[in-house]
């Protein structure tokens, strides 16, 4: 249970130890990538709670989503289409849906554990 959280902490420390020299112009794509990765992570948590978890799908989804989001935003900028907005919208909606689902599952699981024969 605590291992992923420790991993998050470790990653954060590692990231702050390494100073990233990303040009300011690419900051926008970076933010989209972060959004996509957040979405993937919450999707992964949701699937754990739903007992449908597949590590391979999570890993590939995480990396491909992150890279594709950044690249699509970049492409959109080059083509003059605001794919950036579309990505923010899509990932944002999915993020909140995932969060809602996680909350739902957590609540129902807690209730099941409290009451012996609820639901």
């Amino acid at each position, binding site marked *: 249970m605590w291992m992923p959280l420790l*991993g998050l902490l470790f*990653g954060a420390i590692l990231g702050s130890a390494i100073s990233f020299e990303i040009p*300011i112009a690419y900051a926008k794509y970076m*933010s989209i990538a972060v959004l996509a*990765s957040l979405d993937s*992570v919450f999707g992964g948590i949701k699937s*754990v709670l739903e007992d449908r978890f597949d590590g391979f799908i999570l890993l590939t989804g995480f990396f491909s989503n992150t890279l594709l989001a950044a690249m699509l935003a970049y492409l959109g900028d080059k083509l003059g289409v605001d794919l950036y907005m579309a990505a923010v919208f899509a990932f944002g909606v999915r993020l909140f849906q995932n969060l809602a689902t996680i909350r739902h599952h957590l609540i129902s699981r807690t209730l099941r554990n409290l009451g012996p024969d609820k639901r």
Partner: protein
Amino acid sequence: MTPKDSWRLPLTIVFVFLGILLSAQFQVQSRLVSDLSMQKTEDLITMVRNLSDKRLQLETELIDAQSKLASIRSSRADEKKIAENLTAELNKLAIVNGTQEVKGPGLKITIPANSPVLYVDIVSIINELWAAGAEAIAVNGNRINLYTSFYYAETENYMFITLNHKPLYFPIIIEAIGNPNTLEKGLTLPGGIIDNLILFHIEPQLEQVEELTLPAVINEPFFSEAVEVKNN
């Protein structure tokens, strides 16, 4: 690893990468906020205005400081000039009062031994030398200033000339700093002091000297009662 626990490892890996991404993004974002090109136009205008105001203020300050510096410099130069003048004046007064050893070209008058010379003759010679433009005079190594006194003293069979109440021994050597030619002319002009002395069989020898060194007076003049009266 049971199937139930199989979520741990992938999720941990993903979380590690999420952590890295998040902190990277955090860094970029904090750089972005402080970056000048990402500021609002209004803020930038205000910043520019403030900075140019400040620059203007600093420029006026600089001009003020520079003019102050110039005035201080000129006043220092004035002070220096005054100090130089005072020093020159002081040196002149030291020469006049004989408080300073002096050297320069001049005339050396030797009165040989056994000359029937009186103290008034010495005084006459010295007066003549002053009149001829002597700047400093010494007699037998005693600097003459306005406190010097010549007189005479007598024993039963001998008479001394005294200088500051001390006997003056022969040969009497009078040294005067000044233009040597002028000094000599002043003494030897027809009907002058030398002619007079020759009548009494006193034959002083005159010698123009390139450089004479006259000592300072032994007792410097001091003023305890006399106070300067200031006109106006």
